[in-house]
């Protein structure tokens, strides 16, 4: 990691969990970027991709973008039923091309028929593979899957699959009939809607001697069915396994190859469920597997967080409750001592640009040296229509203990190591103005400046009161509220790096912010005096809200953020940038 970054901790359904120490590589699983997180309004909690429950909302083909109804997905074996195929050698999409028109005897140029002449075949524009090499040609350029259906159905793996299904079918029907009869007596977990899972649970209980499928109510009817379930005849496969396992054909091929290019690579072969020929020339085109559109729900309150649109072509969402709409957007930048603080504040106004410039500009090199103090700038951007109050607390980085085997024969003594850096951050609460559309700012400019003046006077810390505008000059204070601009507030902090320090500078902060939990009309913003104190209890009258019955509540939400400032250069290489990898 070269650029400084911020990640948010998601407790993942455990209400009492503490975030793991961020400098351990094993704890990276629970820290997410803000764009990966969702926010459940009912539970007032962050949800990440690992704790949401996902369900499929539709299937589509990634090539032709045709939406496949869920009913026919099963029948088509999760593949596209139209003309979409994958090139076996480079996995790109194949196109249907007509064959070349015959050239006349004297080599004159013939006019090319736009519709093309049969026979048609599949062609890869990336690696120039074509299906005529394996002998697959078509008479018509449409509905190719149908034309290939006969070939596919006669393949040995699909015949075997059909036989397996026929074998299990009567038993699944029997067990699902018995379970549906006593459905009203059982709890929901025991009824399997999917016959496959019913068969699986039967198989599970059958293997353990003396243990039958758990049934809270034992009735005579169940006892009768149990005997049926246990007496499944043995399945005999269509072909003898020993025959299919023999590789004589492959061995013959291997003996005769001339170059290693003739053997298909593992990536090209493992898609087939059946062992097939090893040669590259025998690879067949594959139908494109379908992708699914997923909708995500909060696991506890079942509130839908993400619901995509029905059409596969659109990338928008019908419902999108993401964390970026609730949590303040944070960005961090490291102005080094030789940089003017003002230019850095300007650069931090576009948090997106900070990353690019940090990576490209040689002056911002994220490697820090031990024994020095570096200021950094955190910016908070408020996405909500109400002003919020933020308080940040840097947590003590956990003291790492390493066991050291001493010379004595006693047990190893744990040796305490002091944390290698110290963080200074403002601990008072500061407010961030509400988000408003750009066209509102022309009228509200005066109002915002008044807000600043009010806020500054309310401050208890004397240092902040001297700062009513952007910090100028290199000698300005570096800790505290630096600047407020529109709905962004810049906070300065300092990190002091110890002389013996090494490794990454990563520390945890707890960010607590207070917000109001309903939508307020834009008109109301003018009425607020903007000091944003957290204990405001004035309620706008219900007439202003248009008859809404909900009382605006003040809610406090806190979450942990791990701030990564970069690496500390190695001790012995002073003066030269040394990035350990």
């Amino acid at each position, binding site marked *: 990691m070269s650029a400084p970054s911020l990640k948010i901790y998601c407790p993942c359904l455990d209400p009492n969990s503490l975030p793991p120490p961020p400098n351990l590589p094993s704890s990276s699983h629970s820290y997410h970027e803000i764009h990966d997180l969702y926010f459940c309004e009912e539970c007032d909690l962050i949800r990440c991709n690992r704790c949401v429950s996902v369900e499929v909302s539709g299937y589509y083909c990634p090539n032709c973008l045709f939406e496949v109804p869920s009913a026919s997905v099963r029948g088509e074996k999760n593949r596209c039923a139209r003309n979409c195929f994958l090139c076996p*050698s*480079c996995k790109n999409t194949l196109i249907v*091309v*007509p*064959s*070349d*028109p015959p*050239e006349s005897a004297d080599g004159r*140029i013939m006019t*090319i028929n736009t519709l093309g002449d049969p026979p048609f*075949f599949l*062609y890869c524009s*990336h*690696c*120039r*593979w*074509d299906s*005529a*090499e394996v002998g697959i040609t078509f008479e018509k350029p449409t509905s190719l899957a149908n034309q290939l259906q006969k070939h596919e159905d006669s393949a040995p793996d699909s015949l075997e699959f059909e036989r397996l299904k026929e074998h299990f079918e009567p038993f699944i029907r029997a067990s699902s009939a018995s379970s549906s009869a006593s459905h009203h007596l059982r709890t929901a977990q025991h009824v399997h809607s999917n016959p496959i899972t019913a068969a699986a649970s039967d198989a599970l209980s059958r293997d353990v001697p003396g243990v039958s499928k758990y049934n809270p109510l034992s009735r005579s009817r169940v006892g009768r069915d149990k005997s049926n379930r246990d007496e499944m005849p043995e399945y005999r496969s269509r072909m003898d396994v020993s025959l299919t396992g023999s590789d004589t054909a492959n061995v013959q091929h291997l003996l005769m190859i001339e170059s290693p*290019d003739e053997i298909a690579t593992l990536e090209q072969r493992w898609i087939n469920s059946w062992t097939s020929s090893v040669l590259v020339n025998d690879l067949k085109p594959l139908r494109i597997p379908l992708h699914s559109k997923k909708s995500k729900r909060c696991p506890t309150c079942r509130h839908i967080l993400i619901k995509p649109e029905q059409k596969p072509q659109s990338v928008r969402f019908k419902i999108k409750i993401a964390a970026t709409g609730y949590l303040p957007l944070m960005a961090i930048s490291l102005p080094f001592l030789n940089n003017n603080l003002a230019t850095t504040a300007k650069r931090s106004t576009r948090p997106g640009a900070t990353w690019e410039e940090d990576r490209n500009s040689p002056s911002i090199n994220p490697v820090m040296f031990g024994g020095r103090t570096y200021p950094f700038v955190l910016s908070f951007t408020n996405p909500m229509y109400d002003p919020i109050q933020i308080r940040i607390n840097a947590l003590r980085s956990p003291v790492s203990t390493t066991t050291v085997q001493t010379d004595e024969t006693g047990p190893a003594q744990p040796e305490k190591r002091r944390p290698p850096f110290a963080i200074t951050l403002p601990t008072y609460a500061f407010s961030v103005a509400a988000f408003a559309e750009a066209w509102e700012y022309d009228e509200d400019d005066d109002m915002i400046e008044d807000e600043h003046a009010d806020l500054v006077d309310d401050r208890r810390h004397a240092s902040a009161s001297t700062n009513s505008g952007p910090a100028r000059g290199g000698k300005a204070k570096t800790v505290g509220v630096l600047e407020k601009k529109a709905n962004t507030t810049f906070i300065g902090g300092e990190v002091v790096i110890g002389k013996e320090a090494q490794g990454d500078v990563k520390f945890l902060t707890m960010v607590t912010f207070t917000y109001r939990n309903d939508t307020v009309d834009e008109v109301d913003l003018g009425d607020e005096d903007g000091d944003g104190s957290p204990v405001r209890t004035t309620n706008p009258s219900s007439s202003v809200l248009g008859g809404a019955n909900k009382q605006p509540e003040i809610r406090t939400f806190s979450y942990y953020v791990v701030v990564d400032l970069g690496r500390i250069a190695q001790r012995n290489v002073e003066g030269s940038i040394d990035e350990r990898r």
Partner: protein
Amino acid sequence: KERIIIHSKSITCADVELRGEVTIGQGTVVHPKVVIFGHTGPVVIGTNCILEEGTVIINRRKEVLHIGDNNLFEIGCRVESPSIGDWNTIGVRARVHHTLRISSRCVIGAGCVVAPVEDEVLGEYTVVYGPEAERRTWSGRGRVQEDDLRRKHLEYLREMIPKFNRM
């Protein structure tokens, strides 16, 4: 010394950088921002070629760098190969080293870097593709349609480029 010979029937834009001895054949279309470096040795381009924007052709040897007919050099490609045949396609941002000689009907895919360690000749109908520049041979099917397409491409360019560029 500078000696630039451009055929009267070729379409060459004014914004190209031709250095050294460069010969451009009949019917060839040279888009703007092409760089041909012929100081060390002469560069001879055949008929009906298309050199798209950003093409860089460098001759690092004293011998003549021959480029055949009906080739397509796509945007941003860099060619140092000492000899190129006919009907080839060098893909977008591809790079061909000076140790490689290209024969006819080859396709170098987009972004491929073909830099063999020692001198090598790319046989006919070779396709180079993928990030690791794997190779395979083309069967040649669809060849007539591709030739036709290139012809149409040339005609279109010959018609459109003089309208929008200085010659």
